């Protein structure tokens, strides 16, 4: 896909996120919207996956370590054709397979159950090691929040991935700067993030604008060239990106829009979609 097509796809995914969270009356729009370009790039450009064969043993894997942004992952999977988009409206409903956090047992395309922060990166490292042991060349991607990396297990996993030279593993940090209790650097600063991963023997790529597809493309292309060490992509993003009243607002970390807010959000996204069509 070219950049414009990716942008249009991301805009559709944003509509899915907002619709799903609105229908659920709960969920996490802020961090889903900040990572939308990352989700989009992974599933529409970077990863070797096939929605018709979601359990293909040779496929690339994705682990959403920041599992609370399931609406972002689900909207992306639906857009990619893993399941019907209308099912997004059942998010978090009783009896729906779209659980509040990713559930690999019931959701096509979900490679690992996650949600308890800090655990996904370990599973991803295990998958990457599994590829090495099985002489398979699939790659593993995992997305972490910048608040999530306060969890100690993240650094246990980072040490492991670096020590075992897992160059088929790409760790992406969605650095939107906000967590539930406020700015990450006020709550318990994780900075400098890049130097921490460097110290754990990662190849580190800083992406100044993680909502920009050209910058993401450059970063993921670079990651593919790295041998002998895992890659960490630290992507600076905007929390709530694309919905005017949610942007950079900590309050929209884990809150659903009411009917009126939903209308405004969808109008914002419709306008953005129209603007992209003018290009």
């Amino acid at each position, binding site marked *: 896909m070219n950049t414009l097509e990716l942008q249009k796809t991301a805009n559709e995914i944003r509509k899915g996120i907002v619709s799903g969270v609105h229908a659920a009356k709960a969920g996490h729009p802020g961090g889903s919207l900040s990572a939308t370009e990352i989700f989009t790039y992974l599933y529409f450009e970077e990863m070797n996956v096939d929605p018709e064969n979601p359990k293909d043993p040779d496929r690339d894997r994705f682990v959403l370590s920041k599992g609370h942004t399931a609406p972002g992952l689900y909207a992306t999977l639906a857009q990619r054709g893993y399941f019907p988009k209308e099912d997004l409206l059942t998010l978090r409903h009783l009896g729906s397979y779209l659980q509040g956090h990713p559930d690999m047992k019931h959701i096509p395309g979900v490679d690992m159950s996650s949600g308890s922060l800090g655990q996904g990166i370990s599973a991803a490292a*295990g998958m990457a090691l599994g*590829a090495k042991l099985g002489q398979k060349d699939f790659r593993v991607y995992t997305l972490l929040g910048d608040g999530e990396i306060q969890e100690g297990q993240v650094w*246990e996993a980072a040490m492991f991935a670096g020590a075992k030279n897992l160059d088929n593993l790409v760790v992406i940090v969605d650095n939107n700067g906000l967590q539930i209790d406020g700015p990450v650097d006020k709550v318990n600063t994780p900075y400098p993030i890049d130097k921490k991963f460097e110290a754990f023997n990662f190849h580190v790529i800083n992406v100044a604008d993680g909502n920009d597809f050209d910058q993401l493309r450059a970063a993921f292309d670079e990651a593919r060239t790295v041998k002998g060490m895992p890659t960490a992509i630290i992507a600076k993003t905007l929390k709530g990106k694309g919905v005017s009243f949610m942007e950079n607002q900590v309050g929209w970390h884990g809150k659903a829009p009411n009917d009126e807010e939903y209308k405004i959000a969808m109008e914002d996204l419709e306008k953005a979609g129209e603007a992209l069509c003018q290009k």
Partner: protein
Amino acid sequence: MSEVKKIATRESYGNALVELGKEHEDVVVLDADLAEATKTGVFRKAFPERHIDCGIAESNMMGIAAGLSTAGKVPFASTFAMFAAGRAFEQVRNSIGYPHLNVKIGATHAGISVGEDGASHQCNEDIALMRTIPGMVVLSPSDDIEARACVKAAYEHQGPVYMRFGRLAVPVINDRPDYKFELGKGVVLREGKDVTIITTGLCVGYTLEAAEKLAAEGIDAKVINIHTIKPLDEELVVAAAKETGKVVTVEEHSVIGGLGSAVCDALCEKAPVPVKKIGMQDVFGESGPAVALLQKYGLDGEGIYCQVKEFMA
């Protein structure tokens, strides 16, 4: 009388892994800097490329095992019970149990028979923790033969399994030609009509000793070895309770949440009879030689005998 052969079930674990590794390419063994103590060192020697030392990071090790299992491997994650079930409880619950992944957890150094290391390393809570996880199989073998059989059964079972092994060398009690390990099936080791003693792990040998002493005093005890704590062989336990009218449970574990509780859970609904729970009575252990500790806390043959006798009085 000739000397009874003794072997610690952690040794059996290591040896069984080597056997399994020979037969199955997909077996990988993980450890957390304890390969010499958990006895996975023998597997490392035989299959160095399939032994992964995760260093002192048990939480991550459980996640690595989860990830490996999704890539078609059958990982055996190995560390002390304290760290497998205790420290990494939530990783086991969320990264292994919830997705029902095919991960095997080999937990050695369970119970007070850890000995000199003391209470910080004597895990008397692991059965309680592990059996609350939906879909988790919990195994607690009594000797070398059963421990090796349980490793094999764990491999053959599709889904998460927790295996509990000990540090202390224990007598081989299952050395008989017709021995067969069936997951989820209790084993009647001794028939008796007055009381049923249900036991597990290293307490099985001691319970048989106690049963002989009780017999000398006219108390005829039925002895059941429960190597699979979950799923519990409810049918056998309920039938025995109905048959003897009284039940005693014996385990090297807290009386809260362990085998005793599992038995009571089954009996309270289907055959409510008086149950005496022998085990760690809601206390921490302490440093000391393993056998002396088992004596002090009433878990050796004499201790079990006295407590059953008192219960029957």
